[in-house]
């Protein structure tokens, strides 16, 4: 490994700042000093934080969690459409009834979606995009719903079997 002085000779400071973060203090006492300074800064910044900024941070957290779940191949039974919708409403500090009014949906229907007793209609998903000022696009909600349905299909054979009586003819071979 190169000594830090060699590194600094080879590159300009501008180039280094764009590409390198050097290790901070290594010994325990210096590190504790650094962490206590960090806590002081954090406290000051927290005190300066506006309500809008808090809300944006909470909504960004939700958006990134949704993005990561969509990028992950794994399915999770707890991360269903209604869960994320509930998180969206809770972070906005709204009651279900108030939110239902804001997107012109029956409060009972909203509650049933959140509690997984029914799936959302396309219209509700489009309204969620509009309500969020397009920060939570409809495509994101559709993909969450798709993952939920994939999980349900994989774990509940009765969803398909309940339609058996309606199928009058079927292929006689397997591929």
């Amino acid at each position: 490994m190169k000594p830090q002085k060699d590194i600094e000779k080879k590159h300009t400071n501008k180039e280094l700042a764009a590409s390198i973060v050097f290790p901070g203090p290594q010994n325990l006492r210096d590190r504790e000093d650094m962490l206590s300074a960090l806590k002081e800064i954090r406290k000051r910044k927290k005190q300066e934080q506006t309500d809008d900024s808090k809300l944006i941070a909470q909504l960004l957290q939700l958006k990134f969690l949704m993005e990561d779940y969509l990028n992950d191949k794994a399915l999770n039974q707890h991360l269903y459409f209604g869960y994320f919708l509930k998180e969206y409403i809770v972070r906005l500090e709204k009651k279900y009834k108030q939110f239902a009014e804001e997107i012109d949906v029956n409060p009972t229907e909203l509650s049933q979606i959140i509690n997984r007793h029914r799936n959302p209609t396309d219209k509700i998903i489009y309204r969620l995009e509009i309500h969020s000022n397009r920060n939570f696009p409809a495509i994101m909600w559709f993909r969450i719903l798709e993952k939920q349905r994939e999980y349900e299909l994989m774990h509940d054979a009765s969803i398909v079997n309940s339609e058996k009586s309606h199928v009058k003819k079927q292929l006689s071979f397997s591929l």
Partner: protein
Amino acid sequence: MAKVKLGVKIRETGTGSLVDAVIEPVTLKDYKIIKQSTGRFNKFDWSLYKKKEVYKLRLKANTTILGLMCLIDHTDPDTNAIEIALLEVSVENIGNNKQYDYIGGCLIAFACRESFKRGHEGFVSLVPKSSLIEHYTQHYGFEYFPMQTPSRPCGLMVLYDHLARNLIMKYLSAS
């Protein structure tokens, strides 16, 4: 918190075009490759960070590592932040003749995104070398806090709130 894989875009300096890349956790196999690829990551001994949370940035199309970053997640409520403990861009991508640009930016923006995602409200810190302070500010928007002590002469730099969001917008919105 599950470690994630995130698609990003870096800029090919020759053509100016954006190229697909991925940020993902470093594996044990990667540490061997990093050690063997003498000269490409020659500034720090990354094997010392094997037990820490280390991410790599690579092109989507192949396995060549272009950048590395070690994060420390300070989950205690008083700190509530992500620390960039170490970051290094591969030697061929530092300076005027670099092949790809945005590697450092994407990694730091990824740290900001993780900070929001883990509920730290975008708070990211690093310990600067004194000669790089103004460049971290100019290049990435870090705010400098000079709280010096004899054992910690360079203070701290932080990204937070809109500064962290700006970096996410700049480096991750094309993904």
